[in-house]
């Protein structure tokens, strides 16, 4: 395997020495481009008190290409599908090499605080969200309790 670019080493070091509150990201020992991530649900969102597991991978072209990120914990959210894939502009068309692992994970956390059912990935969830918002939020809360409770 080619040696790890300096930028990735620096980012990893900073994630450890100066972690983002509510977010952890630890590289796998056998693949330093592959991170185990946890994100705490934002306060006053239906995901409050939940801890969500994710995985993140830095492709060969990073930082010219965005990191790949996916939820491993089941979550009821209009922009996250059943396989944990995330619909977020900075992960696709609005990626910029000025962004970093930490800013990307902060954007994911912000997406939990403000779901956007008008630009859905999980269509059935988004429909639910638009038509019965209270019920959808209650369900998101219930799933958080069911699947995202800290062990």
């Amino acid at each position, binding site marked *: 395997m080619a040696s790890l*670019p*300096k*930028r990735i080493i*620096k*980012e990893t070091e900073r994630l450890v020495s100066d972690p983002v509150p509510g977010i952890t990201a630890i590289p796998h020992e056998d693949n330093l481009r592959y991170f185990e991530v946890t994100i705490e649900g934002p306060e006053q969102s239906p995901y409050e008190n939940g801890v969500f597991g994710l995985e993140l991978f830095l492709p060969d*072209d990073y*930082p*010219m*290409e*965005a990191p790949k990120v996916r939820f491993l914990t089941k979550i009821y959210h209009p922009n996250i599908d059943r396989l944990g894939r995330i619909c977020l502009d900075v992960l696709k*068309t609005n*990626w*910029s*090499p*000025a962004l970093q692992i930490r800013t990307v994970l902060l954007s994911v956390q912000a997406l939990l605080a403000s779901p956007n059912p008008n630009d859905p990935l999980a269509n059935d969830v988004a429909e639910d969200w638009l038509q019965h918002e209270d019920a959808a939020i209650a369900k998101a809360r219930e799933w958080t309790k069911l699947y995202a409770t800290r062990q």
Partner: protein
Amino acid sequence: MQLEFTRVYPVFSWSWDIRGDDQAAKENEGQEHQHQHQHHKEDQQEEEELCGICRVSYNGTCPSCKFPGDDCPLVVGECNHNFHVHCIQQWLDTATAKGLCPMCRQPFSLKRGVAINECQMDRLAKLLIQSQPSGLSDDQDMMMEQEFVVR
């Protein structure tokens, strides 16, 4: 007292002549502006010294070069964001870039009248024409489709 020099070890240091920053400060000489600008500069001092793409010092090299200096030159954007020329070239060459500066998402162009930009003008001009956001709509779509067909 008489001193006799037996040996002299000259030590030199160099750094890129980024006249862009000074000029910008002068252009902003309107008083409130200048105050703001300086504050801004102090806050970002640390960030300002690093290439926003590879996060290595301006006076260092991009990830693919070994020797700093003329082999791996720095360029100054019209927006006063500076990058190693190899870094910004590689970014502008991606489809996601849409010709925009990674830092401020303004259309990227080289600042005129800056010495270190002069010899890069031609090299970047071609890339910028290809990735101008104005030319994005139809041409770019067609190019992408063709790529799919070839695959």
